[in-house]
């Protein structure tokens, strides 16, 4: 190591998480306002076309969605989850949380960030397709026997340019039976 007269202070690294909340605002500034992320339009269209009028939205990044919201899950006809923090739950925790949401409201629109799933690297004890994206749907379907799981995601190889950290990429409509 090169010699120095300065005092060296070794410090722990900072945490990337603090950036996450501002991703959409930061990225929006790179463009003019003539565009909209398609998956956000998809959420608005789903809510409008299925006549949901009381949406409880839990989010991390402000997505500026146009919809009628309510303050409480118990007043909602649809729970919308775009908060990617839930994707960082263990798999079993995601299923527990989905079950809890379905108890509070029978209709759930769940967005998951594929890149965080199974974040704690736990062994998965159910048979799943080898391909990751169908495997996510299969895992949800098999883990939620008392619900209908509809995969409304778009399949593509994510190379980091798809705004996934603005709005998670895997979209599911889940209805309690």
């Amino acid at each position, binding site marked *: 190591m*090169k010699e120095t007269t300065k005092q060296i202070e070794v410090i722990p690294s900072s945490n990337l998480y603090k950036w996450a909340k501002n991703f959409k605002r930061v990225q929006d500034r790179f463009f003019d306002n003539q565009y909209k992320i398609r998956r956000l339009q998809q959420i608005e269209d789903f809510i409008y076309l299925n006549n949901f009028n009381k949406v409880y939205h839990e989010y991390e990044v402000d997505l500026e969605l146009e919809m009628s919201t309510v303050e409480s899950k118990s007043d909602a006809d649809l729970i919308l989850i775009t908060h990617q923090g839930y994707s960082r739950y263990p798999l079993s925790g995601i299923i527990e949380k989905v079950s809890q949401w379905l108890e509070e409201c029978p209709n759930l629109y769940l967005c998951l960030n594929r890149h965080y799933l199974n974040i704690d690297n736990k062994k998965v004890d159910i048979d799943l397709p080898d391909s990751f994206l169908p495997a996510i749907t299969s895992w949800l379907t098999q883990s939620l026997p008392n619900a209908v799981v509809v995969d409304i995601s778009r399949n593509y190889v994510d190379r980091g340019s798809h705004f996934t950290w603005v709005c998670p990429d895997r979209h599911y409509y889940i209805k309690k039976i």
Partner: protein
Amino acid sequence: MTRKLIECFDDYPMINNKDEITRHNYIRYRLGRLKHEFWLKNRKNKEKIYVEEYDWFILNNLKPGNTCMFGSAGYYLEDLIENLTVVETWNVVKGFYPKAHIVKHRQELEKLFPNTFDNFVVNNNRGDHWVVDAPTEHMIEYTKTMHDGALLFYSFRDTQIVFNRFIDQYEHFLNWAKSLEKVCDLHLIWHDIKFAKKQKISNNIEYDIMENPDTSNGNLKFVFQYKRNDYKLDMSYYNG
């Protein structure tokens, strides 16, 4: 107002006047380089040098000779590393660190620095991410600049690699690292692969929402030696 629906960055042009591009690129560069913050802290400080703790481990394990830091904001360690070469892929770096070498593609490395380095460091380089399964092709290019016996310090994050996350991820990345011996004569001499440990908060069904450990350096850390397997790292500097 009708707005174009886009899927990804490439679907719509960014604001393209020169000042905006420079500003955007600096922000984008900084978003992916937490270590740049150390540069900002160190450059005007006449008394102290701040070093991130995993970089401290690397500094104390470098072999004598030439060191390349690729895509890792290595310029912040300029006062502590002899014969340092900083290579980045973002032109914007030239603006604040004129000594940086800028390359567009890793294939340029061999022409610029054939058989040159005794140490090669790639520390959570965003440009190395978004590959399928693991960054093998990048490793092949790095070795083309390295002396026999050189060290390659390589760390990255699992969350930005394209792979099936339902498999055993520890095995996946360890097997990849070991496979490089046959692919490009890189011998794995040390690794630290860590994943988040999730526990319930209180008695309900909430968990912490934190990322995998060490978002600065990556939760997958490896040290390789090129064409040899005889280097002993000093682990007393590792606080993993």
